[in-house]
């Protein structure tokens, strides 16, 4: 079974309100942005006979400065974000993550909003967005709302989005003070075109010799991206030495629950993640 183009109905709304209405009117309608996920399923013949609402004409492909931080339009591609000077300078972990998504062909099409809406447990941009405490701005038939990233995902391939609700943009709040260090690492079978076995983003601020703020986020270790709340709490206010790093890493299992699957094993995921965490905390 292959995709049958003649079975598809395509709508190309010009405004967000039209797009929302079209999606709300038909619960089986598909929102299409860059197509890097939708078209894969469609090519397999899984989406024949559906209505497609093509969002690519909506004016959501821009990055702009707001009072609170940087607002990234949902239709920004991964390529847009990896080369954007403000994203690179102020939210470098996100730029690095975007550079590891697929390869050039996927980065040129796949969008930030599409990646979020698809809600894969392995989304490469999610650990940086979780660490930066991103806010997802949604717009739908009942108006606008802002959802913290931590609440946006409700499970594997599941989000809080209501029927007809769309991701308009993602807000990255400016940090109060610069980070002492930060790290993004993706572990996959190869450098490009890989879905991660584990993917990490860490932000750390040390003041007067002790941890003032620390944010640790992993993807691919649970149904959704996870912050390591137990490890973060343990570290806050503490001097960072090898022992503290090892003890924080011992708490990893309290916030994640990796599984054995086609890409890796629970055991490997935990061991590799523990290694990434200790390396980041020790700063070597």
């Amino acid at each position, binding site marked *: 079974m292959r995709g049958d183009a003649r079975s598809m109905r395509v709508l190309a709304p010009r405004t967000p309100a039209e797009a929302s209405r079209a999606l709300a009117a038909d619960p089986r309608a598909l929102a299409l942005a860059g197509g890097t996920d939708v*078209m*894969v399923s469609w090519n397999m013949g899984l989406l024949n006979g559906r209505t497609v609402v093509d969002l690519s004409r909506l004016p959501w492909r821009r990055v702009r400065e707001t009072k609170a931080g940087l607002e990234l339009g949902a239709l920004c591609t991964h390529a847009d974000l990896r080369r954007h000077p403000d994203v690179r300078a102020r939210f470098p972990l996100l730029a690095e993550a975007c550079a590891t998504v697929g390869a050039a062909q996927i980065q040129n099409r796949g969008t930030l909003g599409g990646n979020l809406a698809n809600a894969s447990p392995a989304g490469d941009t999610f650990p940086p967005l979780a660490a930066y405490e991103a806010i997802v701005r949604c717009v739908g038939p009942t108006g606008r709302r802002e959802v913290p990233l931590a609440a946006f995902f409700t499970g594997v391939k599941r989000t809080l989005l209501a029927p007809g609700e769309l991701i308009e943009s993602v807000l990255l709040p400016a940090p109060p003070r610069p980070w002492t260090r930060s790290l993004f690492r993706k572990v996959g079978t190869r450098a490009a075109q890989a879905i991660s076995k584990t993917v990490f983003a860490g932000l750390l601020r040390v003041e007067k010799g002790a941890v003032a703020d620390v944010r640790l986020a992993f993807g691919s270790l649970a149904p959704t991206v996870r912050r390591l709340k137990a490890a973060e709490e343990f570290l806050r206010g503490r001097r960072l030495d090898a022992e503290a790093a090892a003890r924080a890493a011992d708490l990893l299992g309290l916030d994640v629950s990796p599984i054995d699957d086609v890409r890796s094993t629970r055991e490997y995921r935990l061991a590799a993640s523990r290694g990434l965490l200790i390396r980041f905390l020790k700063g070597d």
Partner: protein
Amino acid sequence: MIKLRVNGKPRMFRGAPFKRLLDVLREDFRLTGAKEGCGEGECGACTVLLDGEPVNACLIPVCQAAGRRVETVEALGTPEKLSKLQASFLERGGAQCGICTPGMLVAARAHLASGGRPDDASVREALAGNLCRCTGYQHIVESVLAAAKGAKKPAKAKRPRA
């Protein structure tokens, strides 16, 4: 009806708007350079340029290419007059079975034409979305680097033909 520019010429497509760009190019426009490998955006055999950027034509419904510029491997050169990149692939064993070659050429052309660095690591990253099961990549990378050495600087060339 969908209007687009393909290899510099205005083209019109009358048919299902959700037909894949890859199928429109191959079946309707008879441009069979771009190949279907995996049909899921992993292999890059269907790589074409959309407004100058490499994309997988198997993941784009033609309606999303409306009003845009599409370039396929056929825009690079002809058998009589090969581009530098094509000649270099031939000379250095950059092509073996040939299935990945159109996608490799198009991705390499995008890299060089956009001012991408002609060094090993940059070329490997630019071609990371293109799989080859014959060459082991070494001769492909060497072919691109050799063509880049002979190419004019993108800033000076009017329209660099990679």
